[in-house]
């Protein structure tokens, strides 16, 4: 029996059972397990279960039925096994194929095409060769990405050396990873920091040396209500929803002009060295607005809101008065 045959037969065995089947029964049933030593069987069976789970097959274990004594029973529930029906329109199915071009990472690109294979098997006609939109790509350049991603999927505890932002000191950290997130091109792992007893975020590029996997898969639960999407959004700059008025010299502050929603040319300005224009620009916080205007030095100044104007004055005065 080849390994593929063993895996597929194990899957069918677990799938067609009405009840949990004990490990010993599984061993007696499948020839390659029966022929292996006790240790070899344990190792093989553990790995096989993990591989089936990685394919998406929900192998569940149930301990201690009175009838079985202490033994653990296994099965796959047919309802959990099946891909629920997805009814995509022809247009929707046609664009899904573009997804294969997004990931610049072998593991994630592979997972995407495996997902498409399953959707195709369910009857969707997916076009893998559409080229009419240039797909943006997501790159993963962090060498530690794979170990954190895999551990999040398998729920395996990790420990690693971590260097905090701008600090020279490296400390050993212990984490129950929940997932990896990227914001503005930087990758982070999020999870429960077991040393501090709190959820924490670690930037992957600050992880030093080798990451150790500690213990078995499925060692902890990811708390309900953890939404990686909200968390990732909270890492990113807030959307620009407020409006400011900024005076800029004619022909200056070109990048600010590009983002302006309105330009009023030839208005009175703070001096008469040049002409001035008034820009209406969106911003997310007064501090961000001041950052973006100060870079233009004596070519731009905030007219409104007053709060941002005062902040600009305070910040500049402090430099001047040193």
């Amino acid at each position: 029996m080849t390994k593929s045959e063993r895996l597929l037969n194990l899957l069918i065995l677990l799938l067609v059972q009405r009840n949990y089947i004990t490990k010993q029964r599984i061993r007696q049933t499948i020839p390659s397990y029966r022929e292996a030593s006790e240790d070899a069987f344990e190792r093989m069976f553990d790995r096989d279960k993990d591989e089936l789970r990685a394919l998406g097959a929900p192998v569940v274990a149930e301990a201690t039925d009175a009838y079985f004594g202490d033994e653990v029973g296994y099965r796959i529930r047919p309802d959990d096994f099946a891909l629920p029906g997805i009814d995509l329109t022809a247009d929707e199915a046609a664009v899904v194929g573009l997804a294969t071009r997004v990931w610049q990472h072998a593991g994630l690109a592979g997972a995407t095409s495996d997902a498409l294979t399953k959707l195709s098997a369910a009857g969707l006609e997916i076009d893998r060769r559409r080229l009419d939109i240039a797909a943006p790509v997501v790159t993963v350049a962090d060498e530690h990405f794979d170990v954190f991603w895999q551990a999040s999927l398998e729920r395996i505890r990790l420990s690693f050396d971590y260097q905090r932002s701008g600090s020279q000191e490296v400390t050993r950290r212990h984490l129950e990873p929940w997932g990896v997130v990227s914001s503005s091109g930087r990758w982070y792992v999020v999870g429960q920091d077991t040393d501090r007893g709190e959820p924490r975020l670690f930037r992957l590029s600050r992880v030093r040396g080798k990451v150790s996997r500690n213990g078995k898969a499925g060692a902890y639960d990811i708390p309900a209500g953890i939404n990686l999407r909200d968390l990732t959004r909270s890492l990113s700059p807030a959307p620009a929803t407020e409006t400011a008025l900024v005076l800029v010299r004619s022909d200056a502050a070109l990048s600010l002009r590009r983002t302006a929603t309105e330009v009023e040319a030839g208005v009175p300005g703070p001096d008469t060295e040049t002409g001035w224009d008034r820009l209406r620009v969106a911003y997310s916080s007064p501090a961000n607005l001041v950052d973006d205007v100060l870079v233009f030095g004596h070519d731009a100044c905030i007219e409104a809101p007053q709060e941002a104007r005062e902040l600009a004055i305070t910040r500049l005065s402090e430099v001047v008065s040193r």
Partner: protein
Amino acid sequence: MTTGAKEQVGRLLALVPMIRREGEMSVEAAATALGMDPEQLVTDLRVLIYCGWPGWMPGDLIEVDLEVLDEDGLIRIHNADYLSTPLRLSAAEASAITVALRTLRESAQGETLQSLDGALAKIEAVAEEGRVEVHVPEQQRGIGETRSTLTRACTDRRQVQLTYYVPARDENTERTVDPLEVVDREGASYLQAWCHLANGRRLFRIDRIVDARVLESSADEHPEVEPLSLTDRLFTPSPDAPLVTLRLKPEARWVAEYYPVESTKERARGRLEVTLRVADERWLNRLLLRLAPHVTVLSPQEYADAYAAAAQDALRLYQ
């Protein structure tokens, strides 16, 4: 496509339900539908005949009609009722595809956007919570059109006329370039191109490209320019550029991560002293004003003086 056992079982778990649904399919059609290699698919099918209902007596095994497979290239599968639906998406697959679709929608427009939204909603409804998430930075979103123009120009090997904004000079520049590749790194997209104005290889941040016009002329070949690898630093400061030492308050410490710094030293109260090479003083001045007053120039003195003078000039606008 790999030859591992797990991958092979994965392919079979897609193939069997599809054939069960269709009744029979040609090897070619099945391979195309699933994005697989036809030869691989035939190899995979030969595994199936040794699998089936526990006990594996002749009547328990999955039947693949090997005769029509060999003679007519047709796939027929019987006795596999329990494999009539594809396997649900694994956590890895669900996160990979939903994040990819969400990333795509950032640069999609019109009908494509609508279709992506529809597909995404339906796939998310049947997928379990993802274990990977990506937030596409704002600056990436508006640039979809420029990005596709440039990607096409790279493929077609056509020259491009760029209007490019240079922040250090607050100036738009005109230049003809031979586009080489579009690269995405650290949340930003860049065009790598041979610039005829600079007569050298340059990286252009796509969000700073004000206008890109594809020209009739074909791009020159630049076999000496190697494609950037993922681990290459995009910018390496010239070793001749003057060294500047800054003291950063906690609010400004991000500079040490964002820009290539030569050295860092921890100071009291969370301050960080950094040394970096500055090729263009105007670039430094903009950075200092953005950070004001959370940064001090420790050396050289003339840079410190220029910073104070620039702050003074800007402050005058508010008086």
